[in-house]
Structures are given as structure tokens and as C-alpha cells.
């Protein structure tokens, strides 16, 4: 497939029956999506689950994609929704949102890279933020995402995104400062 082919054209081709087109799209987006999901969920395995579920939804509803937003925005929005659903299910099952937000109580796999990161101050501070701020910060600092795209994914105006990002960063710094204080 030509590298100049747009995402939308690839999706169109997939709808028509070209499975390889989906592979091409995955080549472009799977890793970034996994990165974002890993940041949001704090767990590599669950990130994989979320992205797989996102692909499943894309496959099921690819025919209904109307192009009102870009494929990238649509795909990221689906992924974030999947992350939210997973988070919600996990909280429902454990019966405690507190447990979910407190990484110290969790015991992730030993080879989990995120687990190693969790020990850092920053990671703990991020986990301490509420969901909206966490999503805003991680989306805005995500490599393949600019502020305009992040605003589209979150379905909020750019100005709102920026103010929300500032507020989130301030809170993050404050948390880190408090945690750094002996």
C-alpha cells in the first residue's frame, strides 16, 4: 500500500474487504495507541486489552465511519473510551476506586515496564490526578498528538484544553512538591 494513502482511504479499503489495509493502519497507530493506553491504565497487559478492544470496535463500526472527524481522532477517542470502560470495570470489580488510584496497593507483573516507572514520583503524581486531568496531560504530551488534535479527541474546545492542561500541570507540580517534602 502506498505510504501516501490516507487513513480514511485505508479504512475505506478495509470496509471493502481489504484486510491488509487494517494492518497498514495498525502499523501507523498500534504502538502510539498502546503507549497512550499504558499511560492511562498504568498496566501493560491492560493496555493491550484496551487497544485490542479498540480495534474490535473499529472493525465492527468501520462501515459507519462518516468522516466528520479524522480517522486518527476517531481511533484515539475509541481507545480512550475503551480505557475508561476497562478502568470502570476494574473499579466495579474491586469495589473501590481508591484501590485503583493507589498504585502502592497493586502488584503488577515483575517484567512490567510501567511498574518500574510507577515508582517514580511523577508516575505516582499522575495517578493521583483525576481522570480528566490525567487524560488531558497524557494526550497533550503524547508524541503523535498536538493540542488541536487532543482537543478534538476529548471533544472540547482548544481553549478549554489549554486551561485544563495548565490546571492539571499546576496540580501535578503541587503533588510532586508535597511528595518531595520529607
Amino acid at each position, binding site marked *: 500500500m502506498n505510504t501516501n494513502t490516507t487513513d480514511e482511504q485505508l479504512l475505506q479499503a478495509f470496509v471493502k474487504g481489504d484486510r491488509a489495509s487494517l*494492518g497498514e493502519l495498525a502499523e501507523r497507530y498500534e504502538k502510539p495507541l*498502546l503507549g497512550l493506553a499504558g499511560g492511562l491504565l498504568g498496566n501493560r497487559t491492560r493496555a493491550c486489552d484496551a487497544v485490542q478492544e479498540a480495534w474490535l*470496535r473499529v472493525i465492527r463500526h468501520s462501515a459507519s465511519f462518516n468522516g466528520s472527524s479524522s480517522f486518527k481522532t476517531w481511533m484515539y477517542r475509541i481507545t480512550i473510551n475503551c480505557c475508561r470502560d476497562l478502568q470502570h470495570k476494574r473499579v466495579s470489580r474491586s469495589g473501590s476506586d481508591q484501590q485503583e488510584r493507589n498504585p502502592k496497593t497493586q502488584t503488577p507483573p515483575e517484567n512490567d515496564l510501567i511498574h518500574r516507572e510507577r515508582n517514580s514520583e*511523577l508516575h505516582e503524581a*499522575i495517578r493521583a490526578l483525576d481522570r480528566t486531568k490525567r487524560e488531558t*496531560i*497524557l494526550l497533550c504530551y*503524547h508524541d503523535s498528538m498536538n493540542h488541536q488534535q487532543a482537543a478534538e479527541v476529548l471533544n472540547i474546545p482548544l481553549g478549554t484544553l489549554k486551561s485544563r492542561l495548565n490546571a492539571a500541570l499546576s496540580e501535578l*507540580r503541587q503533588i510532586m512538591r508535597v511528595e518531595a517534602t520529607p
Partner: protein
Amino acid sequence: MTEIEKDQLDDQLAQMTRWEGESTQLWREALDKATAKSTPWRWSIPQFFHRPLPKIAAAIIIVAALGAVLQLAYGPEHLGKDLFTATVDDPTALRQLAPLQRTPAATIVQDLDRNGIPDPPSGGGGFGAGGGAPGRGHPPLMAGAGNFDDFGYRATDAVPGSGDSRHVSDLEPADRQVIRKATMELLTDDVHATFLKATQLLSEARSEYLEASSLTGTGDEMQASLTLRVTADRLSEVLNQLRQLGEVRSEDSRGEDVTSQVVDLDARLRNERRIETELLELLEKRDDAPLREILELRNHINRVRQSIERLTAEQQRLGRLVSLASILVIIRAEDAPESEPEPEPTLGKYFSDNVGTSWTSGLRFLSDTIANLLRVLVGGVIWWVLLTIAILAITRHHRQAHLPIS
């Protein structure tokens, strides 16, 4: 926070959403899953039914549906059918119902068997078909509970109304046992004289008697009523004589055929007497038996005798009803007023009557509505379940269709 620290923070934040490691093929797995899911439809219980209340409701609906199905399949007349009637209708069910129908006899035989008072009957089919009790030298009374062939009786003898019911249909009209009743209303000039003449129609020699009588009012309003019990074969004759006592205003006669009841009673009585005889013979032969067993046998005999007495009384009562017909005679004066004319209802009464009627009809309508709702709810339970499943499926499909943009 310094500029360097800010840059570090930015780097670390960017690092948090980077995926480091082997490449994945999640899209392929998702594609396989989607393809696999699209072909067969997997049955799963909706989440809604995981809660206790819907579970209970579903169980109630299922039980109600089963009940309705049973009701429809067998009908209330079958469910509540008397065993005795079933025996008469269906002779093949005879043997299963035999022990239930003649509880006293069956109980005695089963008790004898259980308590081990064995003794072979004199002649005939014998009491036992099985081996004897070890060490006692006597065979058991019965090989199996309720098997009356082993007891020396045929099923037609043992079960009232079964074999005999065949004879009932074959009976000549003259053999039929009918309870006859007649009612006659007479108009006469002299109520008192007619009343006396009517009583004189009875023949005491034939055990006929005046069951009840009353004489009320005076003059034109005098009225008499009397219930005559006359022999059945003289019913027509007495009715003819009564007709001559005055002007017949109305006459009614009816008969109730109790032949089958009489035949059944006869058969049951015969059986009970036969059992009594057998037990007495048993008692006589086993005078060396332990006292406890003799006492038990006496108890059995007492129970059989009680049953015989009860059946005899019933037989006699039916016999009396059949042999003596009842005639209710009402005698009125010829120019007696028919009845008081209805007074014109007042407005208040009219209103209260209407309110009462409306209230009653309203209640009836309400009960009819509830009954119909229940009928629709229970009778259409299968459709309700199908409808619920359809709604759940549609809801589920609709929800899934909107998942990505939710």
C-alpha cells in the same frame, strides 16, 4: 520549578505514553475475534438476570407458565377428578386405584402383612402368593400391597363401580333406582278441606307418611303446604288424586337416577362383609397366636364392621329415598291475591338502587379486568418471554452500535 526541571518533566511525561518493546499484532487478534463472533450467536444470560429479584421473578413466571401449560394440557376437570369417577370411566386404571378406593380393606390387608399375622385362607385363591415367613411356617398374606387378586377377590368385586358400572348400563328400566320428586300447586275454594283430603290420600299400611305440613292465613289468604312421602309405585296414582282436589296451577316432577350409587354401595358392602368373614375365620383358626396379634386382628375386624355399618346406613338411606317419592303440595284459595303489587319506588330508593347496581357492576368489571389481565399475563407468558428476549437483544444491539461514540 527551574527551566531544567520543567524540561525534565516534559520529557518524563512524553516518556509515559511511549510504547517500548516488541511489536504487537492486536489488530489481527481483534480481526479474528470479530470474524469468529459474527458467525455463531452465543447464548448468554443477560446481566439483568444476574440480580436476585429478576431471578425470582423469572422463576415465578416459569412456574406459572408450567402451571398454565399443565392446566391447559389436562384441564381442571382432570386435575380435580375424583378417583372413584376415574375408575368408573376408565376400567384400566382400576388396579392402580383399587387400594385407594377401598381403604379399610386394603389397610387391613397391608397391616396384616406388615404385622406378620399369616394364615392361609380356606380354599380359593389363598392369601399369599409369596414364600412363607421364616420360622413361622405361614406364608405372608400378600405378595404385594394392594394386590387383591392375591386376596381372593376379583377386581370387579373389589372395586365398586368398576365391574358393576357395566351392569348399571345394562340394567332394565324396571331395575333402575330413581329418587322421584314432584311439586304441585292447587287452587281451591276451601283450602282447609283440600288440605285434609290431601293428607287422607296417604296409605299408612304402605308406610307412607306426611313429612311436613303448614296451614297459614285466614279466609281468602289462607294457604297450605304439605310434603307427602308416598311409595314410588303409587306416585302417579296419588298425583292423579291430588289433581282432582282442585285446579292445578302448576305441576313439576323430576327423578334422580341413583342406580350406580346403589350398585356401588352393594359391591362395597359385599366386599367388606367378605373381609369380615375371612378375618373371623382367621381369628378362629389362630387361637394359639400371641395375644398382641389377636388384639390387632380384633381391631381390624372392628374397623371393617364400622365400615359395614356406615355403608349399610348409607344403603338404607338411599333405599328409603328410592322407595318413597316426595310430593310437595301447595294449596291456595282461588281468589287469593297473587302477590302484593310493587310500590312505585321513591327517588331516594331509585338512586340507592342504581348506586348499588353500579357498585356491583363496577366491582364485577374490576374483577373481570383483573381476571383478563391475569389470563393475558399467564396465558401469554411464552410470548412475554420471547418479547423480553427480543427487546433485550435489540437493546444490546443498539448499545453496541453506539459504543464507539459513547
